[in-house]
């Protein structure tokens, strides 16, 4: 096979995954960037979305709930609704907690959700996961199937971006910023701070569910390992902070940049001299960590800084 064509296919994959992560990062940006809610349980909402869409869209197998064989237009909204409901329940419990408490509480809830997915076999097939999740456009010939998937992800991303940019400039977004920056003043101005917070949390959670659903359709398989905090929650945080929180462009940029760094670093480390070969996988994460430190020190406010819609 032509190597340029291979790199082209890899680039499509890289962009598709980057796009899926970007959906997650935008969800976090609503919660943290706009509203200042420290959600460390991204993996939980991600997993709820992924499993919901899997249950809605797979064929009946007898190993898990569902088997509805419904198409994408049902599985994606279904995933968003399920995640939003869970987010609403979490928000109801935790929204009054401040920053670090909220962070560890959501981290704990995500772990409990992961344990539920792992232990409740009747619903999720437990640790063995759900396979044969249909991938949109997979019947098209290569590479058109992959290009179509990428276009779908990018289209969703574009719609989200435009909607969020509008929301950010609208009064709703300005209230969010005000709550983040000075809660007391927002309260004094008669705003229902709790209500706005819950709205932001639920909206962010719904986007994380959408990201999970897209990932499930893209990978065609999910198991509880995919809800590990390391591979989902933390990397999404890194993307947002590196890109520039509070800024939708920054969220997009951070997602693609960090994902590219994360994925392509392996191509570099597998080319290490022979004596390093087995250790190259460990070295890879060392270098990723180091790169993260260097970026943080050079761009402590994120590479793309926040642009206030209004301000002196």
């Amino acid at each position, binding site marked *: 096979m032509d190597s340029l064509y291979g790199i082209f296919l890899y680039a499509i994959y890289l962009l598709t995954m980057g796009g899926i992560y970007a959906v997650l990062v935008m969800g976090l940006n609503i919660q*943290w960037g706009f509203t200042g809610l*420290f959600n460390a349980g991204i993996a939980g909402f991600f997993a709820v979305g992924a499993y919901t869409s899997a249950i809605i869209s797979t064929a009946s197998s007898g190993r898990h709930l569902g088997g509805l064989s419904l198409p994408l237009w049902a599985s994606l909204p279904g995933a968003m609704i399920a995640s939003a409901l869970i987010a609403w329940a979490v928000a109801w*419990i*935790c929204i*009054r*907690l*401040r*920053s*670090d*408490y909220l*962070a*560890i*509480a959501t*981290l*704990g*809830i995500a*772990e*409990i959700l992961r*344990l539920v997915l*792992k*232990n409740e076999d009747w619903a999720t097939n437990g640790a063995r996961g759900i396979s044969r999740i249909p991938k949109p456009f997979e019947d098209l010939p290569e590479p058109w199937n992959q290009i179509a998937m990428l276009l779908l992800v990018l289209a969703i991303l574009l719609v989200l971006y435009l909607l969020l940019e509008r929301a950010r400039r609208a009064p709703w977004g300005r209230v969010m910023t005000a709550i983040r920056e000075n809660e007391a003043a927002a309260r004094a101005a008669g705003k229902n701070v709790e209500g706005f917070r819950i709205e932001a949390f639920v909206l962010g959670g719904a986007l994380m569910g959408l990201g999970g659903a897209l990932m499930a359709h893209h990978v065609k398989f999910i198991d509880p390992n995919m809800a590990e905090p390391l591979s989902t929650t*933390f990397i999404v*945080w*890194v993307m947002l*902070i*590196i890109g520039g929180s509070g800024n939708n462009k920054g969220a997009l940029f951070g997602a693609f940049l960090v994902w590219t760094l994360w994925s392509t670093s392996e191509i570099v480390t597998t080319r290490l001299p022979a004596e390093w070969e087995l*250790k190259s996988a*460990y*070295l*890879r*994460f*060392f270098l*990723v*960590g*180091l790169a*993260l*430190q260097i970026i*943080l*020190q050079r761009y*402590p*406010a994120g590479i793309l800084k926040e642009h206030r819609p209004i301000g002196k």
Partner: protein
Amino acid sequence: MNELIGFVNFHLIPGIVLGSIYALGAIGLTLTFGILRFANFAHGETMTLGAFVALVVIDLTNWHVLATLPFAMLLTVLTVLVMDRLFFRPLRTGPTVILLIASFGLMLMMRSAIQIIWGVDLETLSKGLAIPWVLFESLRIFPKHLLIVGAALLLMLGVHGLLRHTPIGKAMRAMSDSPELARMTGIDTERVVMATWITGAVLAAAAGVLLAYDTHLDSRMGFRVLLPIFAAALLGGLGRPYGAMAGGLVIGVAEELSTYSWIGDGPLVSPGYKSGVAFAIMIALLIWRPSGLFRGRVF
């Protein structure tokens, strides 16, 4: 009677041992949180580092595990201070979430470095089986458990002495109460930060060594206990060292008691959910008392 002894032997004592180890880890975490204002995700790997230093010392000298503690602590402290200088200090003036992300990067770096240096295999500090003392013909006490709990208690007493009776300890508490006021009082914050890292690293190294002594060690042991330790710190109220001690014990004991057959013959909670117990307690507490058992700082 048998039932009671079984409960003590197999649920309560393991719970207390695990709880003391969690407590040591949680104190370090809560101190760095109180003074530097961020949740340090690299804390688990700091524990792992301590355990591996102990392994090296034992391989070289064949000393008792507890005798390796000073070396493990020393090297861990040095490493942590270097890391603070390189990775945390340049970010100190910025928002604390940046420090949190930096600690995440550091976690990746430390674990990778440990895997490159020591590999990924399972190792042990004390090979073979421990033999218990059997009291009253049924109560089983392990000498190593006594040593672990004893060492943990001594270290906690040490922390107590440091915080209550030394100027730097009082300054640490002051800074944890109010960093702005501490600066306006003329406390040189960098020195307090350094003292905090040293204390946290000493306790983390001890927790790592003791955990490895009780079970075994490998490159991922620290990350494995990081989440229960977070839960313990939060349960006690972030920034509250005494709360962390209590929180660690509560989480450790609760995890072990959750699988006791309180009702009927089977375990109360399916062991598959054991690691969720810590979080369930934590969340229940957050609803009931949002600032932690010991009134932590609410930001």
